[in-house]
């Protein structure tokens, strides 16, 4: 669907060709020119080298999903490019540019009949001292998207400063050669650049970085880390930044240690977090139950990847919903939240920290590889007031009851150092004082307490994104929400009104609010990236759905695109 303010470009190349660098520079330069955008990086299974593709999508509004088709595809070379066939779709209106010396273009591209324009990037680069084909590709893209050269020139100074002036000069010369080579080309469609000056402050950030910043803003001052794709960037961002704000990060020997370290820190009064992915979350489950039972706030970010087992580490999936909500043994209510976009990773993690501290319970943030690792240009997120503030016990003269019953279920927590309030935090069923017991009454009382404190809390409007009015509701969660929004906007252009219900808070369930959101809806289309339709089952377990329900579910690694959802909406004729 050509839209003058919605453009998609992909760079493809084999390992070392620099497709990802070209994509990152394009995104940043476009951001400086006032665009919003998303950079989707896809890499082959090799950790270093191998093939890579960078898709840059630009618009004058928030960009939260992959495009259905590309406007421009530049093959720096085509070696192994067929691996990306399904992710990088060209359409009849796409412009494809390739180096005649870069191998055969993938079959899918030829099949679409899009013209392939030959530009000998490799040979051109040879004519420039230290010339780089990817910078020529970048110049071609910059020219076709109507971006001025100066935006890139300034970036080279910043990006290649440590490589020296020669590298900067070589990149400049290569870029210029690209602009020159594209002089007589055009995308065949109008481009309306965003109005300069009128734009608000912009950020270039990944979901993982945004989540880490949200955590610190919410009050996190300790993290324990065991590296895992695609969560590592959260931990690597936190290591230096926690130190700057007087906190610390410990590298743990495994995830069992990581979660127990944050429990120890939080028991001592320091809000604490760890980040992991499915395999790590699996190891953390026992201790999550401990933190639930002993009422110790912690935040665990699970950046979901393809599963089960080692699965597909570098690709997104929404299939950890079951383990996050139901993974603990016993009845162990805790918080589960899910961000809906790169920018929302900040809000949701900050809110999760606030909720965990307020409700003295673990919060799992279910992010995923798509929102976690992709970089976006977004408007600076509004500052929010959520700062975790735990109810603390004061110095006590008489007997201190750590797990005392309270109307809201939250009992003031003593922190070591407070005189007279010594108690033992325990995962054993305990009395209000925290003394182990196997009595039926105490068991019931404390189970009720921990359930009620979560259910009675007023979560406000943040619990879900509820948009639109149509009597067909698309119900989605997490990172597919962006694609759903786009599909709903396209349906509106066809005259079909569709509404969106996307819970950000998955546990505890909000039956009353959900029923209110569904009022008047006749049909529900459920969209999720899980082979087992975990979200559909979750909805069935907790909520009443309309009689007519359809489910669009698919496992990873391919993201669900707006076009598929749009089709599912259009196809559901009454």
């Amino acid at each position, binding site marked *: 669907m050509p839209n003058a303010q919605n453009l998609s470009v992909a760079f493809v190349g084999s390992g070392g060709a620099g497709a990802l660098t070209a994509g990152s520079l394009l995104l940043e330069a476009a951001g400086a020119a006032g665009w919003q955008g998303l950079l989707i990086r896809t890499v082959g299974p090799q950790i270093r080298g191998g093939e890579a593709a960078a898709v840059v999508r630009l618009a004058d509004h928030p960009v939260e999903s992959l495009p259905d088709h590309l406007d421009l595809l530049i093959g720096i070379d085509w070696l192994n490019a067929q691996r990306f066939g399904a992710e990088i779709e060209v359409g009849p209106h796409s412009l494809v540019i390739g180096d005649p010396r870069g191998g055969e273009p993938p079959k899918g591209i030829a099949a679409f009949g899009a013209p392939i324009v030959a530009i000998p990037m490799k040979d051109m680069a040879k004519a420039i001292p230290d010339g780089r084909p990817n910078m020529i590709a970048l110049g071609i893209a910059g020219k076709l998207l109507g971006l001025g050269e100066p935006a890139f020139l300034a970036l080279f100074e910043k990006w290649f400063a440590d490589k020296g002036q020669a590298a900067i000069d070589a990149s400049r010369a290569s870029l210029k050669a690209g602009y020159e080579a594209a002089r007589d080309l055009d995308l065949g469609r109008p481009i309306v650049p965003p109005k300069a000056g009128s734009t608000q402050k912009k*950020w270039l950030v990944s979901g993982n970085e945004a989540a880490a910043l949200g955590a610190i803003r919410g009050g996190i001052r300790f993290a324990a880390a065991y590296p895992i794709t695609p969560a590592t960037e959260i931990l690597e961002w936190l290591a230096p930044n926690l130190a700057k704000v007087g906190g*610390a990060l410990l590298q743990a020997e495994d995830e069992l240690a990581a979660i127990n370290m944050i429990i120890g820190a939080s028991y001592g009064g320091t809000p604490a977090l760890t980040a992991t992915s499915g395999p790590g979350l699996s190891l953390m489950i026992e201790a999550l139950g401990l933190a639930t039972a002993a009422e110790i706030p912690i935040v665990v970010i699970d950046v979901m990847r393809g599963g089960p087992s080692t699965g597909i580490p570098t690709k997104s999936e929404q299939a950890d919903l079951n383990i996050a909500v139901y993974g603990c043994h016993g009845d162990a209510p805790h918080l589960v939240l899910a961000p809906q976009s790169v920018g929302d990773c900040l809000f949701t993690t900050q809110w999760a920290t606030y909720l965990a501290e307020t409700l003295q319970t673990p919060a799992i943030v279910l992010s995923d590889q798509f929102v976690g690792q992709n970089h976006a240009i977004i408007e600076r997120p509004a500052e929010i007031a959520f700062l975790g503030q735990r109810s603390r016990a004061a110095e006590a003269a008489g007997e201190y009851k750590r797990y005392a019953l309270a109307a809201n279920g939250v009992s003031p927590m003593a922190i070591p*150092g407070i*005189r007279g309030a010594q108690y033992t935090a325990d995962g054993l069923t305990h009395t209000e004082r925290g003394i182990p017991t196997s009595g039926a009454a105490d068991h019931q009382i404390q189970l009720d307490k921990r359930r009620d404190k979560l259910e009675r809390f007023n979560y406000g409007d943040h619990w879900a994104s509820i948009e639109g009015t149509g009597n067909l509701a698309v119900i989605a969660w997490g990172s597919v929400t962006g694609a759903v929004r786009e599909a709903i906007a396209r349906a509106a252009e066809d005259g079909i009104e569709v509404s969106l219900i996307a819970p950000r808070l998955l546990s505890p369930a909000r039956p009353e609010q959900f029923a209110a959101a569904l009022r008047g809806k006749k049909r529900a289309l459920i969209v999720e990236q899980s082979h087992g339709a975990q979200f559909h089952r979750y909805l069935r377990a907790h909520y009443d759905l309309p009689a007519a329900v359809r489910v669009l579910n698919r496992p990873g690694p391919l993201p669900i695109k707006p076009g598929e959802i749009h089709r599912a909406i259009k196809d559901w004729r009454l």
Partner: protein
Amino acid sequence: MSTAKTQLACKPADYKSDIKPIWCPGCGDYHVLMSFTRAFAELGLPPEQIVVVSGIGCSSRIPAYTNCYGFHGVHGRSLAVGAGLKVTRPDLTVVVASGDGDGYSIGGNHFLHACRRNVDMTYVVMDNHIYGMTKGQPSPTTEPEFDTALSPGGTGLRPFHPLVIALASGANFIARCFSGEPNETASVLVEAIRHPGFSFVEILSPCVTFRPDEKNWKNLVHPAPVVATDDPAKAARRIMTDDGFNIGILYRGDRKPYAPETGQALVELSELEKEFEL
């Protein structure tokens, strides 16, 4: 140590809670509890400044029997809890208590890394060479021929040597004690707590129910015939060749404890987002 602290509580009874232990009569762990309270009294620390952290097992029930802050977590992970606590609250005295199953089997990996990390805390393992709480299965320190329902005729496996492993992994203080000598044990604990870095104290503590033979330990233990060394090679030779009943402080290292600076913010929070601004 400030005078305020010493005035507060200095009788062992001040460090004992009113909770009645679940231990069997005659269990060695009663004496370990006594050594804890005596050591805390001798150190003169306010009970609210001490945290006793544990995992799961008979021995791991000890925190609630003290009048200190306590943490009774999951099986085998107490050292990780202790590390997270001590790094963020360096003002506290952290004592981690464990059993031979909790510390050497399910928690074995954390033991290695706690020694290596060398956070300033004291790790006490009440070793009874058996899983007491689950009623008598072999632990990593059980003798190869010891017959149990789970290992008819014995495991045939060589026991794990915790002190050697602690030394090789970087523990900064290593001692062996016997629960039946609470005064001696208390003074070792005092030294262990005072010693900077990760201190490891293995306390032989009989399980009278599932290892009645261990009642004879009192006849086997003997004071180490040597003074503590700071030479790991010497300590290794000594520990590897002793009879397992050599009681005393066997190694005292001088590695710097791991203690990241915390508490002092160097920048305003609003600085952190600068790197994202275009």
